């Protein structure tokens, strides 16, 4: 393979000491800014949805509600997140590996294709004849350009993954790093492998659906559509999980000088994601006809829960690595001194720790329980499902991305954050808002309230019935939490855009990276009882106890319903 060794212009960032390729920097900035713009759009759509499902407000008429819900799903779940992931991939491949970015023209093609694709789909939705939800289950049909936009967007993302891989090849050829890939790069690489599988699945189902919408293909089997669509839809969330966990590890390094407790354990856990995470696509198919229990159990459990095991490992090792770094730098008293003395007012840290907690306790625990073949029958397609995935995607992924954004603004734009007190508050506003939203909606879903539903009062319907008062109250509380999280999201957008446009320049001698604490030698000089991270271990046991309790609570509930055989 011919690899040019032409020098690319770069600068040494004073804050971090990192060598930043200027072409990569422009691409990272562009992708990140586009991401934040789409987050704003997705947030506005989300606000309209929340204000409609809040029973006392019930803002939009039915047609606009379903339109806003379609827009919210696509823009917030796909467009914002994947644009940001492109920024992360380019930053990590070039800056972390100290390398120039491969094929910048292809990278700009990625930006154009994804922007044009997202715009085309957005237009289709706003035209009103494509209110088919993000999932667009056939035989319900959208306008052809609804699918076309998604296809272009996906092709753009695929090109982005190619640029990332090309950069890894250049870095290896030009020996810009020594030994194995840093964990941050390794995690991103895992994410791109999952992304290629995801995008291939998306192409396999969306291209025929596009041709079907044009009348060139006669029918698409609705069951086959769901099976393949979810290989795309669910796997795209697995990219997000892999990306945000990589960011957790990275922020632990940047903010505490932490390194993984064990490279071997963390890398093996990431590898389990490649092998097993995509099997989880079947979570969406557990109530479907024609699939055997053996097939469902094998897949829904990610082959004996090996991907869950991987997530439980990351859930311990990331805070564990922070604990070890804190203890090494002297905060070695008691179980939780290291945690108390974390920089809670620093939005980078606050976003990250809230992301870890919300993803673990809300998104993670509920995800494991609801994907049990039988428990799924009392959860499938209720509003429990959006409750769950707002815990993973908004509370987990979006918060982690917000944290990294706060870190990168001074690095990439060389500006300080504006409104620092509000920036310190913002993660809590968003995190607490989305937690209330997720938990309350899961409560309402447990009582049967359906998702994607405009009017749970069934006004004017002869066969209508009334939901328990508790279900209605949960919907109100949940949507108030939703509004709170939108306020938090809007504040994030204001701070980001304001800082880029009007932030103070970064002072000349400022540093934004914490040196690794000195290893005083020997493993047993920190911690308690032979444990280097006893505090994290106790917190992990709390998570495990919560998971076990919640698991059996759901089986108890399941055992009271009609007998089904």
């Amino acid at each position, binding site marked *: 393979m011919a690899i040019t060794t032409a020098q690319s212009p770069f600068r040494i960032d004073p804050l971090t000491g990192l060598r930043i390729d200027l072409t990569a920097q422009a691409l990272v900035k562009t992708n990140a800014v586009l991401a934040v713009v789409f987050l704003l759009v997705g947030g506005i759509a989300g606000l309209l949805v929340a204000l409609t499902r809040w029973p006392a407000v019930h803002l939009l008429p039915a047609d606009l509600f379903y339109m806003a819900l379609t827009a919210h799903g696509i823009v917030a779940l796909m467009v914002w997140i994947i644009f940001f992931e492109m920024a992360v991939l380019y930053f990590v491949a070039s800056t972390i590996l100290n390398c120039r970015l491969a094929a910048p023209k292809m990278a700009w093609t990625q930006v154009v294709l994804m922007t044009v694709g997202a715009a085309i789909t957005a237009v289709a939705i706003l035209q009103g004849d494509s209110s088919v939800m993000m999932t667009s289950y056939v035989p319900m049909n959208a306008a052809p350009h609804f699918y076309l936009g998604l296809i272009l967007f996906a092709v753009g993302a695929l090109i982005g993954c190619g640029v990332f891989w090309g950069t890894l090849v250049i870095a290896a050829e030009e020996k810009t790093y020594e030994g194995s890939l840093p964990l941050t790069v390794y995690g991103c690489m895992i994410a791109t492998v999952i992304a290629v599988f995801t995008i291939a699945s998306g192409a396999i189902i969306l291209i025929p659906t596009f041709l079907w919408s044009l009348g060139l293909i006669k029918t698409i089997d609705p069951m086959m559509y769901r099976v393949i669509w979810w290989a795309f839809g669910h796997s795209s969330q697995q990219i997000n999980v892999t990306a945000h966990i990589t960011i957790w590890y990275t922020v632990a390094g940047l903010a505490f000088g932490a390194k993984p407790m064990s490279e071997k354990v963390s890398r093996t856990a990431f590898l389990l994601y490649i092998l097993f995470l995509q099997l989880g696509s079947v979570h969406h198919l557990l109530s479907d006809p024609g699939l055997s229990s053996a097939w469902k159990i094998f897949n829904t459990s990610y082959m004996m829960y090996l991907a869950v095991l991987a997530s439980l490992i990351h859930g311990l090792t990331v805070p564990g690595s922070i604990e070890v770094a804190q203890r090494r730098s002297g905060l070695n008293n008691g179980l939780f001194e290291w945690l108390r003395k974390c920089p809670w007012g620093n939005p980078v840290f606050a976003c990250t720790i809230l992301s870890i907690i919300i993803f673990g306790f809300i998104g993670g625990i509920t995800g494991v329980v609801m994907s049990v073949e039988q428990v799924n029958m009392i959860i499938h397609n209720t509003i429990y499902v959006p409750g769950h995935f707002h815990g993973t995607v908004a509370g987990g992924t979006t918060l982690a991305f917000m944290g990294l954004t706060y870190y990168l603004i001074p690095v990439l734009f060389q500006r300080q954050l504006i409104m620092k007190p509000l920036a310190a508050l913002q993660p809590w506003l968003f995190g607490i808002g989305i937690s209330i939203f997720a938990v309350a909606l899961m409560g309402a879903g447990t009582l049967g309230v359906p998702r994607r539903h405009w009017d749970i009062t*069934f006004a004017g319907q002869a066969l209508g019935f009334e939901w328990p008062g508790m279900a209605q109250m949960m919907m109100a509380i949940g949507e108030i939490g939703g509004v709170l999280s939108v306020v938090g999201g809007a504040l994030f957008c204001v701070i980001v855009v304001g800082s880029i446009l009007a932030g103070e320049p970064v002072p000349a001698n400022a540093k934004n990276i914490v040196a690794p604490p000195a290893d005083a030698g020997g493993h047993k000089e920190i911690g308690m009882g032979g444990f280097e991270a006893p505090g994290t271990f106790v917190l992990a046991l709390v998570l495990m106890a919560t998971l076990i309790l919640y698991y059996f609570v759901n089986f108890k509930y399941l055992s009271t319903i009609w007998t089904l055989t």
Partner: protein
Amino acid sequence: MGYSFTAPAKNWATEPIERTEILWITIAGLWCLFMFGWMIAWHWIGNQNMSNEAYKTSTEAYAKKTEDFTAKYTVRQDASDPSLPVVAPPPGSDVYLAASRWQWRPVVELQKGKTYRIHISSLDWAHGFSLQPENINFQAYPGYEQVVTMTPNKSGTFGIVCNEYCGIGHHAMLGRIYVKE
């Protein structure tokens, strides 16, 4: 030394794993194995499992079955909406429920403690079968006929809500099952 974002030590693959991680991986791994076993075991020890019985069909054939079923066992018109027949099939029989935009039909009356083979399918788009307040949820497609064997353990009036989005009338899509003592 080093960070999460710098290249690891050369011996990273052979470095010993610290006690915190070893113990946690053991605990988490055991729980994962338990969950896997429990999900399988519930097929024998639990009373709530899917039969996974399903057939390929056509919307015309399924519509015909539902019509015949309705004609055969209609016992009265519904009190809430006199245009709707209420169908009371004998225990142990096949019950055909058809989803279409935007209704679940027919209204059926079952007996508590008796077992029925409930067939679920759609005559047009994808729909959701969500029995409330029991909160039992299944997916309905055109061309696929799913059979779930149900034994009501409570009496009363149960609503069927569509919880798979199916267009502008989705929120008006309802059905009903009566269960008498």
